[in-house]
């Protein structure tokens, strides 16, 4: 596994490693996804669009340069964009690996941050000096305008070129609520969705505010994923109930469907999914290639026992699968 370094989110030549519940694997091109599924199966994807959630600016008290990465908010409501959970970074930018970034200044409730056109106040420090609750000044439209003009997509050192917003929007992006791209959705394009429909494979969406995948700080990373708001349309809940097998496109869809337990509507996913989790809604997951130790990988342990995952990793390594959000994919069936 090596990190995909070019911002080519929708490489037509990407591959999928299908991993059966018996551990047997099969590598196919991305475009052959319909052949891995059966009529009556339902693919559920996250239609969140990614906001430019990295905001550079100044901590007014010390004059220090900081980067604020927005990481969560309590709802998906578009007029409720003043309060955010955020992670604070020191000077520098994404080209320095997060774990090597200089520490930000210590902040306290009441501190002001000047982030381009945006003004934010620290409301609370959430049990870690870099994890904050912030409030932006001004009405919602002004906050959106500031984020749209000043924000940049959150990105990591393995993609040095600055990403544009179009690099982090999936084809199906519909609701700007994600802090990082729901990247398994990069595997889908309209032609593939047409082929899936042609084979009688269902397609439905939910909206889940995907948060940060990594901060570079072990104590903070251990708290990921943070709480994430989601919305499941009634049509999607009905399709899930009627489906023979439900294939979640990505970890966020898995988290939302498992949290909702069949219900439609708004929710806040607070649970962690891991080896002890009994999956109730999702039969298989189509996901990017994640390294053992990442929170995304922990979720896969709910789908398959460790020997199966070890076999999967060995195959991914041997066949040179590209990892991370712009890489290739795994289709893992529940054991």
């Amino acid at each position, binding site marked *: 596994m090596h990190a995909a370094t070019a911002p080519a989110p929708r490489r037509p030549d990407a591959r999928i490693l299908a991993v059966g519940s018996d551990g047997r694997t099969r590598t196919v091109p991305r475009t052959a996804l319909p052949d891995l599924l059966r009529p009556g199966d339902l693919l559920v994807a996250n*239609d969140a*669009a990614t*906001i*430019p959630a990295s905001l550079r600016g100044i901590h007014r008290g010390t004059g220090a340069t900081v980067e604020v990465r927005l990481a969560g908010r309590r709802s998906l409501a*578009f007029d409720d*964009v003043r309060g955010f959970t955020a992670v604070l970074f020191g000077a520098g930018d994404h080209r320095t690996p997060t774990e090597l970034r200089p520490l930000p200044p210590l902040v306290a409730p009441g501190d002001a941050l000047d982030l381009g056109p945006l003004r934010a106040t620290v409301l609370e420090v959430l049990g870690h000096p870099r994890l904050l609750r912030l409030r932006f000044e001004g009405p919602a*439209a002004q906050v*959106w*305008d500031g984020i*749209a*003009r000043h924000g940049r997509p959150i990105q990591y050192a393995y993609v040095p070129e600055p990403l*544009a*917003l*179009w690099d982090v*929007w*999936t*084809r*199906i*992006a*519909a*609701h*700007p609520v994600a802090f990082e791209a729901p990247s398994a959705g990069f595997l889908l394009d*309209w032609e593939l*969705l*047409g082929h899936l*429909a042609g084979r009688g494979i269902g397609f*439905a*969406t939910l909206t889940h505010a995907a948060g940060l995948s990594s901060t570079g700080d072990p104590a903070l990373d251990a708290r990921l994923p943070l709480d994430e708001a989601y919305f499941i*349309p009634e*049509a999607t809940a009905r399709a899930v109930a009627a489906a023979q097998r439900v294939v979640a496109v990505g970890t966020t869809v898995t988290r939302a469907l498992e949290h909702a337990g069949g219900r439609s509507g708004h929710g806040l996913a607070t649970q962690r999914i891991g080896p002890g989790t009994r999956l109730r809604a999702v039969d298989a997951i189509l996901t990017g290639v994640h390294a053992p130790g990442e929170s995304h990988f922990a979720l896969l342990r709910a789908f398959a026992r460790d020997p199966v995952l070890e076999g999967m990793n060995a195959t991914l390594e041997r066949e040179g699968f590209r990892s991370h959000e712009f890489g290739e994919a795994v289709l893992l069936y529940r054991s």
Partner: protein
Amino acid sequence: MNHSPLSGLRVAVTGGTSGLGLALVEALHRAGAAVAFVARRADRVAAVAARFPGTHGLAGDVSVKEDTHRLALRILAALGGLDVLIHNASSLGPVPLAPLADTDCEALEEALATNLLGPFRLTKALLGALTAAAREGRPALVIHVVSDAGAVAYPGWGAYGASKAALWHLSRIWDEELRPHGVRSLAFDPGDMDTPLHALAVPDADPATLERPERSASRILALLEEHAHARRDRAGTPAA
């Protein structure tokens, strides 16, 4: 209470501060639709938004690639989704109008950027939202404002005509390709209207011979109503 069939419909209009675009913003606002509109000049955007309270005015230029996703983000955040996208912003190309042989390449590029590339990019960026609306049984529609200059070879209208011909064809191909995903695309030719764009093209035209943009806007609203009804009948569920 507003019981218009367009009440609650989420509509985005480009070029919303003058001519047909302004008439559309006003008519849609009156019909109870949720409206976001885009135009280049921030002062005019603010003035129109203030005139029609509740509408969302967004300053941006559809001909600029870097503005595309910023505008899409703002539109979706303002409306919470999208049912109808109306590509109305237009560039005439060279002003005053010029024969092709005297048209600067840059003037043709400008007409293509505004009239063809901009609508293509914005539709692409908003397609996720439009298909999501379709999956929820809502009407999902892209309207391209075209011109008979895109069908008839009028001397002097080369840059504009060629760009509108391409937009017209783009609209037809979108419709073929998007129909399976529940989204329709159509082209609307408003005819010669009494608008700033027409005045630039034909400064000495007699306004009495020109269509009022308000009349063309109401024809587009009639189209939207027809589409919303058809969708509702097919889906068997309310569209809004």
